[in-house]
């Protein structure tokens, strides 16, 4: 970041949600409805402050707000610093903007829940953490937010904690995230050990100047450690298993945390540390493999899901894979581009799903929906727009970012995987096709056809529909607006993320673009046909290859696999360590020593017989022994 610093007041951005969280909880305890208003207001204020700052942010500059020295010990100095540069600005806009909309949505969605003061407090706390994450001027502050969002995610997934399965899902999310965090921490330790700082401004020149003793291996090692962290947070293989379960939380939470913002933290972190990753091509190759595998696995899994939120969850995992692909190609701005567009349409999808669920009285199974376009027109339209966006149909935002991703992959110039990139591209395009397919499937099953449920669906109130509309508009036009076509180029704006690995750029005609979105069109079309006209076809497909269908509907059995090779063995080991090692061996030895002393004490029954003659004999014997042994011999 060879940019100039301008000091500015940044802390209110994070402070508003924090204050909001406290107030929402405290005041909300008295009057539940205030909680939502307070939280939404706090979020909105934060958004306004972000807008104010971003508006004022000059090119090639960043704002800095040094609050206080957090840790200061020997060589280890960590400042509590906030920075707003272009990358943070984009993220902040998304977080606070989408966040505010979702807050607004939640006021209606949650309006009957007894614990909504808790809900809004957590939600605002999440905003606070997320803002720390994106505003943090060094890895440590980022890490605060990193763990903080994990905590809020935990709390919100388990929000309906009376259901123990939900609570367990929250725990799973936290623990899996922790595994990633452990890797992240190791990365931080490595950086601290070898570079001595985690401050991005100081880190970048230090890394890029190549003064670090260990060279490429070191970069690769650090990059991989950090990527482990990103895998945890952004739900990549092998740590993605928590995200589908995370759908246990209220739907706005899924929209905000498990789609639009938190899960993209890993991508953000990669972009932030891009200067390191570009120096570690081997690590980037790993990222690519993981990303592609994740995208493909998640997409195929999504094909068979019936729970509308599960479909969206797997689609999120898959889309996160796309983001990481971009990052792996070194096109960090593209990754962020997809983060932004994804935030729009995926938030919209989730909120739409929430609206459906709300309208259908907490029914989540798509087999019990259908025909809702009549009952819930706004929801239907916004959902449809977003499906087109995620499918990557030209002009919609998803097309812009996905196209950029493919473009970046086509310009793969990493020595690793160079000969494989063609095949990988085919797989990626197939995945994009699948995306379009299963999203259309969900749309068709939900909104078209006849209603198959027993509830009385109704359109949602305005606080829910307004965010839907806004997000749908953004999902439709946002990509275009950021692509440079309308005068603002995200790529240009995020020029600082260009570490000399950018893809070549060319404008394309509308026709070309339409052709380029053939995968999406094919997916949408095929799914539409299959699920509206040839309703027997999907079932037949699956019956044709039973093992495959089992594998897919079983979600590749990741949970079962982890259970069998990690969780249960560890549980068994824990029980073994406790019962056998701790109580049996170690404590057994301790008690055994005591028992040995006791047993020795019982020897007195042999020696202390009470017989006078025996005593005399012992006395005499001992005398003789001592005299002979010590004095004569």
């Amino acid at each position, binding site marked *: 970041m060879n940019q100039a610093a301008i000091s500015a007041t940044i802390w209110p951005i994070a402070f508003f949600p924090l204050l909001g969280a406290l107030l929402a909880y405290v005041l909300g305890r008295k009057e539940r409805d205030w909680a939502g208003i307070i939280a939404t207001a706090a979020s909105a204020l934060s958004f306004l402050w972000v807008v104010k700052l971003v508006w004022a942010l000059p090119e090639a500059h960043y704002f800095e707000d040094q609050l206080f020295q957090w840790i200061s010990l020997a060589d280890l100095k960590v400042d509590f610093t906030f920075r707003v540069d272009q990358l943070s600005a984009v993220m902040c806009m998304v977080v606070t903007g989408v966040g505010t909309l979702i807050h607004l949505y939640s006021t209606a969605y949650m309006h009957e829940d007894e614990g909504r003061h808790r809900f809004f407090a957590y939600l605002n706390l999440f905003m606070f953490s997320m803002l720390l994450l994106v505003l943090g001027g060094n890895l440590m502050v980022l890490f605060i937010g990193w763990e903080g969002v994990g905590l809020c995610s935990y709390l919100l997934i388990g929000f309906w904690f009376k259901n123990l399965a939900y609570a367990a899902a929250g725990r799973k999310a936290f623990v899996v995230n922790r595994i990633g965090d452990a890797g992240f921490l190791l990365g931080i330790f490595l950086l601290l050990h070898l570079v001595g700082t985690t401050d991005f401004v100081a880190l970048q020149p230090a890394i890029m100047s190549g003064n670090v003793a260990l060279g490429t291996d070191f970069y690769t090692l650090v990059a991989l450690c950090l990527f482990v962290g990103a895998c945890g947070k952004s739900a990549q293989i092998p740590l993605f298993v928590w995200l589908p379960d995370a759908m246990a939380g209220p739907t706005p939470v899924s929209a905000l945390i498990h789609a639009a913002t938190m899960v993209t933290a890993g991508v953000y972190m990669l972009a932030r540390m891009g200067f390191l990753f570009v120096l570690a091509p081997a690590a980037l190759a790993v990222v690519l493999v993981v990303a592609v595998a994740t995208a493909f696995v998640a997409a195929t899994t999504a094909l068979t899901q019936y729970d509308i939120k599960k479909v969206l969850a797997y689609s999120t995992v898959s889309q996160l894979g796309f983001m990481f692909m971009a990052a792996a190609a070194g096109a960090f701005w593209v990754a962020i581009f997809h983060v932004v567009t994804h935030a729009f349409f995926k938030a919209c999808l989730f909120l739409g799903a929430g609206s459906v669920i709300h309208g259908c009285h907490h029914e989540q199974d798509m087999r019990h929906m259908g025909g809702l376009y009549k009952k819930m027109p706004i929801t239907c339209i916004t959902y449809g727009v977003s499906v087109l966006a995620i499918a990557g149909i030209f002009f919609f935002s998803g097309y812009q970012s996905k196209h950029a991703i493919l473009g970046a992959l086509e310009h793969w110039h990493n020595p690793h995987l160079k000969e494989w990139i063609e095949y990988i591209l085919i797989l990626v395009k197939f995945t994009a096709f699948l995306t379009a397919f299963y999203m259309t499937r969900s749309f068709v099953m939900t909104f078209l056809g006849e209603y198959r449920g027993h509830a009385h669906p109704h359109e949602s109130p305005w606080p829910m529909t307004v965010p839907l509309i806004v997000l749908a508009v953004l999902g439709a036009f946002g990509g275009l607006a950021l692509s440079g076509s309308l005068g603002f180029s995200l790529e240009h704006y995020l020029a600082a993320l260009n570490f000399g690995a950018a893809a070549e750029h060319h404008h394309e005609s509308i026709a070309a673009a339409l052709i380029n979105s053939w995968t999406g069109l094919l997916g949408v079309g095929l799914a539409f046909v299959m699920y509206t006209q040839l309703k027997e076809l999907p079932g037949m497909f699956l019956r044709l290859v039973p093992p495959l269908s089992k594998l897919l509907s079983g979600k590749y059995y990741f949970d079962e696999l982890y259970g069998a090779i990690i969780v249960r063995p560890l549980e068994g080991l824990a029980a073994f360590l406790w019962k056998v090692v701790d109580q049996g061996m170690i404590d057994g030895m301790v008690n055994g020593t005591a028992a040995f002393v006791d047993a020795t004490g019982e020897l*007195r*029954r042999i020696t*202390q*017989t*009470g*017989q*006078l*003659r025996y005593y*005399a*004999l012992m006395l*005499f014997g001992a005398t003789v022994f001592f005299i002979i042994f010590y004095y004569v011999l």
Partner: protein
Amino acid sequence: MVPITHYLILALLMFSIGVVGVIVRRNAIVVFMCIELMLNSVNLTFVAFSKQWGNLDGQIAVFFVMVVAAAEAAIGLAIILSVFRAGQSIETSDAAELKF
């Protein structure tokens, strides 16, 4: 002239007989007499050494030992009596209530 060694060996034999008696006999009176035998063997030793050294210390000691032996007799018999009163037996092996 009988050399001193003879006296000493005799005394040692007497002492040993006393020791063995204390160890093997059960009757309290006999045990007591064995102890007296041990004391007397020591007396013999004293006298022998006294003769050898040509001073009277040893012989004086003998008198004291005899007095002690007499006192022991008094006390010992009294104790044996009280044991007999308590348990109607003067076998030492019967007096084994205190143990362990």
